[in-house]
């Protein structure tokens, strides 16, 4: 039986020979099957060896069989071109030339085939490219190519034909998707200690983590590598965390941050949630075509469906679409028009846009369906700010303004007030205005007030819940911060609360619950001001700080140095609202910190009032709790240190014992001189006198 081995070998390919011994060693059955396929192995074509081998013992030949050529290999590189002119043999050569010229642009054509019937070509051809990528390229670019008036090429992949042939003609109603329970989407609010969460991106975007904020140290909730490719966003009520990927957006939420929804949008770079968390708007600079608007897509978060696509016509500031507070409307501004759409139909409100010549900026009220917009001066017509009720399109307030360079619309968070910051030109000259004007509107009451500041205004901010606002004004390096209170007693007169002089303050941003912050060009100076009695609570500094983020409760503030702006000392620091530094968290290549927003409280106004009244009662409980956790923490730290010390001591004792045992060897190595102690060979010492240089300075005393 063994003699059969010799004639088989020459026919086997090189790879196969190495396995022959393996085939033969288990003796019996295998050899018999070799004989049965003897004729096949004699064939000069090495391919014909494959059927033979596969019959043998597939499990033994697994690694060879994997290399077996497939029938469909190369099929991906074939394209089918339709609507090719039908020509006779005399013009075939010319056609081939033309086709070759058009299609060889996308890659090397390895085979071409022109089916014929009755001496005429059939009007479609097959082309094979060197690689499937080239075929794809040809489909992408040559499909729809106009050869002449009658002939427009339709180019398809050969494999696509297969795919579409298999689709049945009958309509199948899509299966109902089972309802997926993601658990409690607002799990984090149920935390017994009411800790807020925040997301942190670090290691230059490699890692993303969610932490629970705690005064002692952050508690890790979730940490993942490469969770997002660029940055993350929280939805306005904190339910979802959006991560960015090349292919689209993913939303995460629930207790364990499971994936809840995916929106496929190639190259997405910006997103915006509707305030009601029902819709999300995504923007991608890549995927816009004339027929199918795909630059901006509005998605339904709950179903994951694409609701509508838009073109990105003008490169305006993001968000291009601004949402009304309840998510019922969204609007975009294009030159001279304001288009308002309604949900859920995603159609234009009343089927037509608003025509507003020269519209510069608009803004929704955060409290009502009121839209505010402003129009600059046009020759004799003064600039004006308009408040318009939606959807009735009724103008409720209009105010004319003069000598306007620029306007900024600042709504107070509840929508009670609108402040229009106006930069004015001094009369006659067209330079940037030296004075700033604040126009206050009270949207619900029919009042406006104009308030003039003599210096240019750098930044403006409203208190989140209330009627105070802060203004940074002046010229660098002398910049003042002023706090004002709007009285609501029939006439609104902002009364100056206090004023501070801030030097070297270049770029500033104001936060106004109790505290304001200023980012200076090189050193992040922070000032914590209590606006109720105007005391400067603390002045601190986070060197190089680039960002400031308040937590949703206003009790903590985080300043951070992002890797995106500076490459060193990337860290975020946590402060209390009084300006006490709680933590310095150094994270390697820290990029971004975002607080998880909270949904609005469910308590009624009365309930909140009651809580405020009983605050003393509650504060006792909290203080006790704090003391407990503090003593626990210090005990933990002491215990940890003790354990570390214990371990270290144990190591040192062992090392020293070993050291003492080696004393005789050391003595031998140094010729009997004991050098273990500093003064062990005092006899060799020489005494030396050393001078100390002391400065002498005579200061004559004057008349006493």
């Amino acid at each position, binding site marked *: 039986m063994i003699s059969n081995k010799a004639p088989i070998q020459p026919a086997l390919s090189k790879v196969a020979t190495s396995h022959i011994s393996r085939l033969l060693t288990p003796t019996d059955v295998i050899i018999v099957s070799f004989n049965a396929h003897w004729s096949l192995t004699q064939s000069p074509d090495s391919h014909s060896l494959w059927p033979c081998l596969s019959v043998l013992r597939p499990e033994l030949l697994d690694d060879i069989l994997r290399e077996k050529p497939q029938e469909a290999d190369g099929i991906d590189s074939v394209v089918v071109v339709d609507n090719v002119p039908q020509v006779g043999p005399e013009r075939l050569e010319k056609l081939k030339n033309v086709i070759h010229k058009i299609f060889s642009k996308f890659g090397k054509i390895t085979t071409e085939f022109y089916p014929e019937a009755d001496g005429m070509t059939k009007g479609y051809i097959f082309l094979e490219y060197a690689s499937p990528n080239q075929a794809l390229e040809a489909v992408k670019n040559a499909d729809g190519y106009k050869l002449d008036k009658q002939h427009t090429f339709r180019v398809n992949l050969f494999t696509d034909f297969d795919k579409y042939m298999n689709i049945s003609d009958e309509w199948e109603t899509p299966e109902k998707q089972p309802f997926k329970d993601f658990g409690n989407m607002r799990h984090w609010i149920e935390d017994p200690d009411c800790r807020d969460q925040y997301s942190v991106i670090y290691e230059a975007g490699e890692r993303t983590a969610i932490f629970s904020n705690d005064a002692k140290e952050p508690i890790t909730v979730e940490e993942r590598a490469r969770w997002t490719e660029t940055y993350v966003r929280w939805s306005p009520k904190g339910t979802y965390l959006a991560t960015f990927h090349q292919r689209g957006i993913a939303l995460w939420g629930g207790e364990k941050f499971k994936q809840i929804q995916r929106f496929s949008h190639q190259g997405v770079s910006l997103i915006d949630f509707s305030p009601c968390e029902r819709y999300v708007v995504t923007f991608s600079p890549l995927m816009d075509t004339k027929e199918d608007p795909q630059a901006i897509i509005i998605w339904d978060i709950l179903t994951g469906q694409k609701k509508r696509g838009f073109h990105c016509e003008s490169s305006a500031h993001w968000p291009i679409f601004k949402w009304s507070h309840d998510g019922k409307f969204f609007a975009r501004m294009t030159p001279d028009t304001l288009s308002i759409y309604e949900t859920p139909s995603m159609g234009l409100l009343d089927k037509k846009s608003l025509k507003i010549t020269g519209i510069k900026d608009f803004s929704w009220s955060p409290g009502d369906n009121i839209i505010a917009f402003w129009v600059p001066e046009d020759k004799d017509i003064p600039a004006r700010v308009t408040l318009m009720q939606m959807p009735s399109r009724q103008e409720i307030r209009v105010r004319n303004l003069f000598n306007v360079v620029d306007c900024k619309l600042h709504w107070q968070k509840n929508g009670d007030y609108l402040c229009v910051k106006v930069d004015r030109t001094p009369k006659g000259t067209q330079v940037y205005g030296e004075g700033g004007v604040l126009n206050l509107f009270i949207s619900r009451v029919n009042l406006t007030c104009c308030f003039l500041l003599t210096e240019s205004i750098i930044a403006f901010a409203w208190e989140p819940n209330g009627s105070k606002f802060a203004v940074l004004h002046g010229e660098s390096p002398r910049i003042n911060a002023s706090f004002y209170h709007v009285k609501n007693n029939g006439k609104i007169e902002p009364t100056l609360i206090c004023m501070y002089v801030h030097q070297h303050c270049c770029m500033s941003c104001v936060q106004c619950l109790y505290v304001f912050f200023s980012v200076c060009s090189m050193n992040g100076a922070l000032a914590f001001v209590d606006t109720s009695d105007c005391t400067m609570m603390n002045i601190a500094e986070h060197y190089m700080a680039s960002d400031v983020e308040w937590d949703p409760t206003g009790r903590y503030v985080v300043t951070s140095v992002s890797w995106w702006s500076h490459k060193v000392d990337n860290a975020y620091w946590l402060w209390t609202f009084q300006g006490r530094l709680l933590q310095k968290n150094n994270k390697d290549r820290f990029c971004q910190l975002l607080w998880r927003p909270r949904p609005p409280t469910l308590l009624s106004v009365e309930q909140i009032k009651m809580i405020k009244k009983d605050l003393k009662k509650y504060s006792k409980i909290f203080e006790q709790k704090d003391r407990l956790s503090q003593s626990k923490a210090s005990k933990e730290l002491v215990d940890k240190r003790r354990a570390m010390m214990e371990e*270290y001591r144990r190591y040192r004792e062992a090392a020293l014992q070993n050291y003492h045992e080696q004393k005789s060897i050391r003595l031998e190595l*140094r010729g009997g001189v004991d050098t273990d102690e500093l003064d062990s060979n005092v006899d060799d010492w020489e005494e030396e006198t050393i001078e100390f240089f002391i400065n002498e300075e005579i200061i004559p005393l004057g008349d006493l």
Partner: protein
Amino acid sequence: MKPILLQGHERSITQIKYNREGDLLFSVAKDTVANVWYSVNGERLGTYNGHTGAVWCWLLYLVVSCWWTYWGGPVGYGTSDGFVNVHVAFTGKQLALLHTNSAVRTCGFDFSGNIIMFSTDKQMGYQCYLNFFDLRDPQQISDNQPYLSIPCSEQKITSAVWGPLGEFVIAGHENGEFNQFSAKSGEVLKKAKEHTKQINDIQTSLDLTMFISASKDNTAKLFDCTSLDHIKTFKTERPVNSAAISPIMDHVVMGGGQEAMEVTTTSTRIGKFEARFFHAAYEEEFGRVKGHFGPINCVAFHPDGKSYSSGGEDGYVRIHYFDPQYFDFELEA
């Protein structure tokens, strides 16, 4: 704590060492000289003019490292122009001059003071070698032929010290790896890789039982000399150039800062050029000493543990005598 400022170098300090008794402080810098100082008051005792011939003196611009025996005896230092000088410490008399092909990065005497070890840089087509000369054998010196030469061409040696009893050399490599090379056979006895970037400095404790490594990966780590077991880690935000273990307290001192080539002219604050003190057992920082206006390149404890010195990129050596509070200070435990 008022420092004594030593101004004896024109370029950045590369290494400082105390002798065994601690009365002398030796410093080398990227300029041509090696200085010896009285540690008690900072008076200069003398300068080694390593090279006398004017012919190749101009080549000598970088004294990369030096090592001084702990017990009197000879003194050696390596230079970038490819020489290792062996002197008598106090008189400055040259005992031996060894020639190498490329710059000498680290060198050291074994415990007995008889064997000199030095590593050469991978440079100008020459490989990185770890060479061993036995000074008792005049033949080796005159022939300039080491009794043992270990090639380390893949990863250059950036720092090396002798282990206890002179049995092996612990070498730190530019990839953050440690190797224990036997001084007799040259074979690798043990390996460890705890650092991710280049090891800038290795210093042993006074009793030679453990060593601390300073790395570009912003950490310093404590190891056992014999077993190469990792014991402790000390983290900072900047590359660590040098670290030393206190002989009397459970403390370590680390020096470093933003790399010289990355330092901007805007502010010294961002560079973090402070010497930083960590508790050896708790791995916690408890103190900083400001002063240098460039990165600290080397730190060293006085053998009695009552003072320490640092040498910086700014060319100054600063001797600091600790205040009494330092010795009373205890972290709560």
